[in-house]
């Protein structure tokens, strides 16, 4: 009985920090009415030195177009393993993409930056369309993109 309780306490102690180290975060991206086809978007994170850490989401499922997400492609070589399980459909002009992710707490207030590269068929590529520091204070503050993204906000 004693050993059972000890095991239970140990597993609880090991599990609780894990649960506390991540939080659900909603990333909302609204596109302009740019008058083209659906946009491919790559959402990824860089560390304080600017080095690629990993991807958060890929909007657009065909890897043959990923080279147009130029910064993301330069960092990853277009490796599909970077975005397995976090890939969805491309986003139409004027539409809003709302992504909910369980993100590590360590990403916030630690110098990490969230980037979005965008590309649209027969239109100009737009690398680093959004670059926003991941901070607790910045949550809920909309950021405007350069070409295709009307606003981006995380909270």
């Amino acid at each position, binding site marked *: 009985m004693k050993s059972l309780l000890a095991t239970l306490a140990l597993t609880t102690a090991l599990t609780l920090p894990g649960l506390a180290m991540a939080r659900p975060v909603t990333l909302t991206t609204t596109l302009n009415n740019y008058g083209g086809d659906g946009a491919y978007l790559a959402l990824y994170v860089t560390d304080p030195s600017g080095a690629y850490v990993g*991807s958060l989401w890929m909007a657009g*499922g065909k890897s043959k177009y990923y080279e147009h997400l130029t910064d993301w492609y330069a960092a990853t070589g277009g490796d599909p393993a970077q975005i397995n399980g976090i*890939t969805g459909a491309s986003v139409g002009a004027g539409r809003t993409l*709302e992504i*909910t992710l369980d993100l590590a707490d360590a990403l916030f207030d630690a110098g990490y930056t969230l980037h979005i590269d965008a590309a649209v*068929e027969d239109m100009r590529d737009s690398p680093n369309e959004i670059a926003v520091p991941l901070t607790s204070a910045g949550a809920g503050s909309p950021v405007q993109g350069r070409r295709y993204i009307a606003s981006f906000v995380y909270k």
Partner: protein
Amino acid sequence: MTSRLSLLFASTSLTLAMGLPALAAGPTPVRTDGQCGGVCAAVFTSDDLPLPLIRVSGDGEEEDDEDGGWFRRGHDDDDDEDECEDDDDDEYDACMGAGGRGNPAPAGTVAPPANGLFGSGAPPAAVTK
């Protein structure tokens, strides 16, 4: 019974005797100059003009090849060199990417990559409005 069979035999013989020479006397149904004569003319034309040729498929007039398309998602024509069909219903097929790789696994089919960014809570989800 015998008379009925005789009558049938006689009418068949008469038909063959009159019909076969008529068919044999006619030219080939379509001549090389496109004209139609003999039985063919009787059956297929109401005047002396040949029927227009109907092309089932062909090259030329209506080629839809003007997309210039290095980035024409969803509008690939059959001349597409990578043989990758672009119907949106098949968004996650086995098409090869620019680097000769397959498409990534869509969200919900496999776990997110272990890149240290994700917790172990709810799986990634997305909606488009």
